[in-house]
């Protein structure tokens, strides 16, 4: 029987100090192998809060009726006033879109984020195209939001498929689809800037990204080294950009603002490389600036 000399209480076996006053137990009994602690050492896992954004089926039924009433009212007023469907197309289509966005995940049996996103983007696209169609002059303004939405979707899809494992694929397919998107915009706006301006900058960006991806495999380019590499690449990209832009706008190849950027970024990246290579320096910085 072990007692705490200070509190005078008897202590549970195998305790090395008093839980009340932390006084060590001076003559702990020979610890007993068969004895089990009164609580296990396992700690409850911290679970992220689960937020369910998907409405239940019954909620969808409720919302359907709530949405049907304004839709019918618009429709009736329009028909009685004009004899044909005129303006009521817009509110009714909007309500329909809202319904699809809300109801799809609830009515779908197995849904994933990507499926929901796909359906959402495509129904918005359909909505925009139909509005454009209805307001006369097929494919006028809707080209811009629709193509932008599709590009966003492609990027989500890329990250969804390749994730973090294959950033190279993301870069290359992203490059192709972005180029296509920009080409489409050029055609739609009936101007000439794609081959002289957009494509070279895009290609430059792709090259930089690929070089960073390849170099980041080396041990030196980790941590601060990787930051240094990215910063130096950023500076190079600025050089390239300015060259291409000046060439396109003025027809000259003089450099100005990218030099300022370089003056800031290149010393910074050299500093980061130094930090990466010099162990002592790194430890010093960690000591002085740890949070």
């Amino acid at each position, binding site marked *: 029987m072990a007692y*705490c000399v200070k*509190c*005078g*209480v*008897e*202590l*549970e076996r195998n*305790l090395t100090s*008093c*839980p*009340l*006053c932390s006084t060590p137990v001076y003559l702990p009994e020979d610890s007993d192998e068969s004895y*089990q602690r*009164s*609580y*296990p*050492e*396992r*700690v*409850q*896992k*911290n*679970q992220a809060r*689960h937020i369910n954004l998907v409405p239940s089926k019954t909620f969808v039924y409720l919302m359907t009726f709530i949405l049907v009433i304004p839709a019918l009212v618009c429709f009736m007023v329009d028909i009685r006033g004009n004899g044909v469907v005129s303006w009521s197309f817009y509110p009714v289509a909007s309500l329909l879109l809202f319904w699809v966005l809300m109801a799809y995940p609830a009515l779908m049996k197995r849904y994933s984020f990507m499926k929901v996103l796909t359906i959402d983007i495509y129904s918005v696209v359909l909505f925009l195209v139909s509005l454009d169609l209805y307001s006369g002059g097929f494919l006028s303004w809707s080209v811009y939001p629709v193509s932008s939405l599709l590009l966003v979707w492609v990027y989500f899809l890329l990250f969804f498929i390749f994730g973090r494992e294959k950033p190279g694929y993301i870069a290359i397919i992203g490059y192709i689809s972005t180029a296509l998107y920009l080409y489409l915009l050029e055609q739609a706006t009936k101007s000439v800037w794609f081959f002289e301006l957009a494509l070279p900058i895009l290609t430059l960006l792709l090259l930089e990204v690929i070089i960073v991806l390849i170099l980041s495999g080396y041990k030196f380019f980790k941590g601060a080294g990787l930051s240094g590499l990215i910063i130096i690449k950023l500076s190079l990209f600025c050089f390239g950009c300015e060259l291409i832009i000046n060439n396109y706008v003025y027809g000259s190849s003089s450099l100005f603002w990218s030099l300022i950027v370089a003056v800031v970024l290149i010393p910074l990246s050299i500093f980061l490389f130094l930090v990466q290579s010099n162990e002592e320096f790194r430890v010093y910085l960690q000591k002085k600036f740890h949070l």
Partner: protein
Amino acid sequence: MSAKKTDASRGWYRLDNAAILYLSIQSERITTMFRFSATLYENIDPQALQTSLVKLIDRFPYYRVKLSKGLFWYYLEHNPKTPRVEKDVQYPCGRLAPISNRNFLFRVRYYNKRIAVEFSHALTDGTGAVTFLKSLIYQYLKETGKNISDSTGILTVDEKPDPGEFEDAYHRFYKPALPLPETGESAFHLKGKLVKKGVYLVITGISLLEDIIAVAKKKNATLTEFLAAVYIDSMQEIQDKYIKNPKHKRPISVSVPVNMRNIYPSKTMRNFSLFVIPRIDPRLGHYTFDEILKIVHYCMMTEINEKSISRQLSRNVGGQRNPVIRIIPLFIKKIFAPLLYTKLGENLFSGTISNIGKITMPEEMMKHVERIDFVPGPGPVNKTGCSVVGFKDKIYITFGRLTREPELERVFFTKLVKMGIHMTIESNV
């Protein structure tokens, strides 16, 4: 009341008054979980425990629920999933994890020879949890082949749930238009830095029941009164240590939950308890232990009766019945309720001492059960809570705290030791 019964038979329940209160203050630290555990003489067989839980859960349909949100209130609805038993952890009464816990508001844990049930206060109070634990042990013992014929006082799987067990007793005994109870000024609270989230430190003191009752008897007090007085005395000692200037001292009060089933005829298995708050004011001078005991004793005598309690009940339920409050959307209620609770609830008392009394069960079951523990739920303002349970010839006084230093526990237990009561201390750290 007939409307309520239909709700229940259709698989959903309105929250009772205490549940609304506890849910509104629920957070990562204030989990509002409390725990009862029973230690048997043999190691627990998880399979048998799981089977008993599955068999038992439909005897307690009001616990087979999950929490859902309405526009104005939370509500409980039938949970089609099956509850699972899980391994025990070091820090009890942790936050409910909706996914791993399958949306249930209680959980059953096992460790070596011990079965523990942890309930959210949204579901029930101590009486409900003890009843559930007893039924679970009964079923488990049967499942493991023990021959138990006597089931007096145990809710078994063979019987149907009584409609009275579903009721919201607060509503049933609500009397409109009673004067409000007096609310005192805010009380003294323990200081100290909180431990990191998820940690809950538990210290249990074990003593012989007859020893402690003998000391209380000598002073003409019941066990609850005696322990509440020791609690207040300990708080007084701590306050004296830190605050020298009497002008800066705060009143010390401790909330003692009262099982309302003893006052009103109700069989409910949901929440039905309120508090009595004996208090002393150290600004008037130092109180001796006997003075404190006298105050506690007479406070309990005068406060625990149908008339005084119904005032408190009336205030709490009246708030919930107020039409203006009812139509405020839930998300707005959620913002203001915690403030209100700290102001009117926890600020008013320095600590809680919850005595569930002596747990009894049929003799045949008794010989398979070694001990029963009761761990209070964590509260951030008071930082320390205390609960008391008696089983067989022992008494288990458990403190749960969210601070690193067990200051109150040290003073409390040393006081008991000085009175000649032999204490054994256990801890989860």
